[in-house]
C-alpha cells in the first residue's frame, strides 16, 4: 500500500515497461488501494437504478443478471446511435501512442491498461467483435474479443481509474477523448448496477437533499452561520447571507464540499465576504439555495440521464426564486456540465436575463443563453473596473502557484480569469512548467468521483505528475500555496501535497480574494482566514 511506502520507495517501485504478456492475455487483477467500494444498494434504489445488490469486486461471482451480456450489447448499440463521438472514437484510433504517456494514471502507476489508448481498447475490442465485419471475420487478429466476465471486470476496474480529465484528447490527432469513452463505459456499467459508492451515494443524497453530502436545509444554514462567526472574529463584521430568497438579484450555486471540509471552507468564507461587500457597497443581493445547494454533479460520472436529473435543480430553483441569472462557484466538473451540457439538457433558460454585472454593467455575452457566469469571470470583471478595494499585502506570506483544474481548462478554456484575479490579490505568483498547466494541466488524480479513501494508492499515483510540478516550483521559487478553482482539488490536493510536497498548502481562489478584500468598517486584520498571522502585521510589530 502506497500510504505505507515512503515517497522515494513509491517512485522506486514505479515501472513503466510493459509486461511480456500481451494485454489481451493478461487477466485483470483487482488490487486493493486502486478501487473504490461498490455502491450501497440503498442509494441505487433511491435513484431507481437497476440491479441494486450487495456484491464484492474481489469475489469471483459479481451476481450479475443472467442476460447481462445482452443488456450490455443492446446498451452499446443504442449509444452508438446516440453519440457520434463514441462511434467515431471506436473506429478511428490508429494506436499511434501519442496519448500513452499523457495520462497521469499511467505515469503514476505504470499499468499499461492505464494508457488512454488501451483503456479505450478494452471497449473497442468488444465493439469490433460485436459491431464490425473485420472483427467478426478475423477475431483476435483484428483486435476483437468476445465479451466475458473477465472483460467486464477489467472494464469496471479501469473505467474507475480514469478521472475524465481529457488531457489525452488534447494530444490525440483525431481528438479522441477518453473522458467520453469512460463516461459511456460507466453508463453501460450502471445498466448492470456496477457503480462505486463514492459516486452512487452522493448522487442519491444530491437527488433527495440537494447536495452530495446530504446536508439538510437547516444544517446547511447552520454551517454557513458557523463561517459567519469565524469571519466576525477575523474582521469584526457580521455577514448576512440570504437563503432561498425570492426576488434576489442572483442565485449562487457552489459545490457543497466547500461548506463541509477544509480548506474549501475558507473559499466558502471568501464567497460570503465578497457577497457581503457587494451588498454593503453596491446593494447587490445574492442568495444561496438549500434546494440547489450542490454545484458538483456526480451524476455526470454515472450517466447522461442522471446528470440531467441532478442538474435540473439549478434552473428550477432560479425560476422559482425569480432571480435574474445564476452565478457559479469554483468547481471543476460542475463547470464542464454547465458550460457544455446544462443549457442543452435543461434549457432554454428563457425565464432568466442575459447576465449583466449590476455593478460594472459588463454584459457576459459568452453566457447569453445558459445565463450562468463563473465567479472567476465575475470577480475578474469587478477587479478590472476597480470595484473592489484590495490590499494584496495581506497575502504576502504566500507564494502562490495556480493549478488549472481539468474541466475549466479543457472543457471551458478558462485560463486567464483566475490568473488575473490571483495577480491582483497576491504579489508572489509563479507558474509551473508549461507542459503541466493550462490545456496541458495534470489532474489531481482524484476527479470523476474517485476521491475516496480506500483507493488512496491510486490517488497518490495519479497525483504524482501534478505534485512533481508543484515540487519543482516549491524548490525553485519557494512556492508554499497551490491555488485552484475546483472543490475536488481542494478536497484531494491537500492529501496529495501532504504526501509528495508537505511544505505546500492548498487554497481556493476566493480565499485569496477575501484575504485581500478591504471590507468597509472592518477591524484591522491580524490573521488571514485560516487564523495564520499576516506578514504585514508581523512586520509592523
Amino acid at each position: 500500500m502506497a500510504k505505507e511506502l515512503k515517497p522515494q520507495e513509491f517512485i522506486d517501485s514505479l515501472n513503466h515497461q510493459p509486461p511480456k504478456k500481451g494485454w489481451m492475455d493478461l487477466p485483470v487483477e483487482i488490487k486493493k488501494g486502486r478501487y473504490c467500494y461498490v455502491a450501497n444498494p440503498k442509494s441505487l434504489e433511491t435513484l431507481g437504478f437497476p440491479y441494486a445488490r450487495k456484491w464484492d469486486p474481489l469475489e469471483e461471482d459479481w451476481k450479475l443478471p443472467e442476460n447481462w451480456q445482452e443488456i450490455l450489447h443492446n446498451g452499446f448499440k443504442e449509444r452508438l446511435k446516440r453519440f457520434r463521438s463514441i462511434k467515431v472514437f471506436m473506429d478511428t484510433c490508429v494506436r499511434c501512442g501519442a496519448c500513452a504517456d499523457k495520462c497521469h494514471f499511467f505515469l503514476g502507476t505504470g499499468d499499461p491498461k492505464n494508457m488512454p489508448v488501451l483503456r479505450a481498447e478494452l471497449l473497442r475490442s468488444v465493439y469490433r467483435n460485436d459491431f464490425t465485419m473485420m472483427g467478426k471475420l478475423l477475431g483476435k487478429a483484428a483486435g476483437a474479443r468476445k465479451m466475458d466476465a473477465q472483460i467486464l471486470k477489467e472494464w469496471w476496474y479501469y473505467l474507475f481509474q480514469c478521472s475524465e480529465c481529457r488531457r489525452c484528447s488534447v494530444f490525440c490527432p483525431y481528438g479522441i477523448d477518453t473522458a467520453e469513452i469512460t463516461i459511456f463505459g460507466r453508463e453501460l456499467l450502471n445498466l448492470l448496477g456496477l457503480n462505486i459508492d463514492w459516486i452512487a451515494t452522493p448522487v442519491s443524497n444530491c437527488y433527495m437533499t440537494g447536495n452530495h453530502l446530504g446536508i439538510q436545509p437547516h444544517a446547511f444554514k447552520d454551517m454557513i452561520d458557523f463561517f459567519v462567526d469565524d469571519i466576525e472574529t477575523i474582521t469584526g463584521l457580521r455577514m448576512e447571507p440570504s437563503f432561498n430568497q425570492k426576488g434576489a438579484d442572483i442565485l449562487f450555486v457552489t459545490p457543497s464540499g466547500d461548506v463541509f471540509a477544509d480548506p474549501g471552507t475558507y473559499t466558502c468564507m471568501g464567497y460570503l465576504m465578497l457577497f457581503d461587500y457587494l451588498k454593503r457597497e453596491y446593494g447587490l443581493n445574492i442568495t444561496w439555495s438549500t434546494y440547489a445547494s450542490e454545484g458538483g454533479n456526480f451524476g455526470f460520472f454515472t450517466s447522461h440521464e442522471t446528470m440531467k436529473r441532478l442538474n435540473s435543480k439549478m434552473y428550477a430553483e432560479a425560476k422559482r426564486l425569480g432571480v435574474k441569472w445564476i452565478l457559479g462557484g469554483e468547481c471543476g466538473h460542475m463547470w464542464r456540465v454547465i458550460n457544455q451540457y446544462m443549457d442543452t439538457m435543461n434549457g432554454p433558460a428563457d425565464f432568466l436575463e442575459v447576465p449583466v454585472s449590476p455593478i460594472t454593467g459588463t454584459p457576459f455575452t459568452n453566457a447569453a443563453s445558459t445565463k450562468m457566469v463563473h465567479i472567476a469571470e465575475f470577480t475578474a470583471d469587478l477587479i478590472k473596473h476597480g470595484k473592489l478595494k484590495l490590499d494584496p499585502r495581506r497575502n504576502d506570506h504566500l507564494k502562490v502557484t495556480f493549478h488549472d483544474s481539468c474541466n475549466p481548462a479543457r472543457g471551458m478554456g478558462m485560463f486567464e480569469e483566475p490568473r488575473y484575479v490571483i495577480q491582483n490579490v497576491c504579489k508572489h505568483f509563479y507558474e509551473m512548467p508549461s507542459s503541466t498547466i493550462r490545456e496541458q494541466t495534470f489532474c489531481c488524480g482524484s476527479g470523476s468521483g474517485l476521491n475516496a479513501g480506500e483507493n488512496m494508492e491510486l490517488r497518490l499515483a495519479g497525483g504524482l505528475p501534478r505534485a512533481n510540478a508543484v515540487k519543482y516550483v516549491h524548490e525553485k521559487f519557494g512556492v508554499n500555496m497551490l491555488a485552484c478553482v475546483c472543490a475536488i482539488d481542494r478536497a484531494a490536493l491537500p492529501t496529495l501535497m501532504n504526501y509528495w510536497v508537505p511544505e505546500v498548502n492548498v487554497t481556493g481562489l476566493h480565499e485569496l480574494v477575501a484575504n485581500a478584500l478591504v471590507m468597509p468598517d472592518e477591524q484591522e486584520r491580524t490573521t488571514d482566514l485560516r487564523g495564520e498571522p499576516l506578514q504585514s502585521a508581523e512586520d509592523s510589530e
Partner: protein
Amino acid sequence: MEDKYKFAGIAIIVLCCFPLVCIKFLGMRYVFGVLIPYTALSIFLLGFISKVIGWSMSAVPFRIPTTCGQQESLPWIKANKIDCPFTKKGVVIRMLLEIFAFRSLFRNTKFSMDKNGPKMTFSWELWLWVFALAFHYSFLTVIIRHMRFFTDPIPLCITIVEKLDGILQIGLPGIFISGFVLLGAICFLFLRRIMIPQVRYISLAADYFPLLLIIAIVLSGMYMRYISKVDVVGIKSFTMGLVMFKPVIPDTISVMFYIHLFLVCTLLVYFPFSKLMHMGGIFLSPTRNLTCDTRQKRHINPWNYPVKVHTYEEYEDDFREKMIEAGLPVEKES
C-alpha cells in the same frame, strides 16, 4: 507480441505470391487486371461512403469540444480563436490545421523520469509529427503523380507536381523524392512500433498490416521504375482502358505490375473496414469540429427526453418543519 507483426508479414507475403502464381501459372490476367481493380475500387468507394454516412447518422447530443486555449469571455481578455474557436470560422481554421498540419500531434511531449530527483520531465517530441507529415504528404504526392496514368491529356497540375518531385534529377531515370521519403517515413513508423516498448505493447496486427502493405506497394513500384523498366506505354494504355471502361490487356506488362496493382487493390478493399478510416473520421470528431460557444448559443440534443426529478415541492414536503424552525422561507406554511 512478436506474432502480431509476423502474422501481418506473412499475410503480405501471401498477398504478393497470390497474383504471381495466378498469373504465371494460370494466366489470370483479366481477373487481376480488370475484375479485381473494378471490384476493389467499388468496395472502397461504397465502403468509405457508407462508413461516413453511418457516422453522420449518429447524433451529436452535446457540444463537447476540447478547449485548448483561452475561452471568449471578457472583452479585455484575449481569446484563442483557433484552439478554443468561438466562431465557425475559427472551427474551420482549427480543422484545417488539424487535417493539413496535424496540429494536435504537433503538441506531443515525451515523458522521462529521473528516479533520483525524483523528477518527471516532459519534453517536446517532434519526430512522430515530422514523420507522420512526411508519410502523408509524400503518399499524397505519389498518388497525384500516378494520376498521369489515368488522365489523357495529363492536366498541368499533375505535371507540375511531377516536375517538383523530380527536381533532384541525376541521370536517368529521374528520381522522385516522394517515393524515397515515403519509404523512409513508413519504415520509421514501422520501426517505432517495434522498438518503443509501449507502442509495441498497444500495437495490433491491424497496425502492422497496413504499414507492411504500403511498404510492399512502394517497393514493387520502385522496382518497376528504377530496376526492371516496365513497359510504361503499355501500362498507360491499360490504365486508360480501365478509365474508359474499355479494358485492354497488353501482353507486355510484367508480373511485378500485377503484384503492385493487386496490393493497391488490397489496400483499397481494406481501407473502409480498418483504422485507415481516420482519414474520414477526423472531419467528424466532435471534440474538434464544434464551436466553443455552448453558453452563448444553445445546442439542441435530438433525443433529449424528460427525466424524473425531485422537485422543490417534494423537497419542501420532506423538510418543511426543519426549514421553518431554521428561519428559512417556505412556500407552504404547513
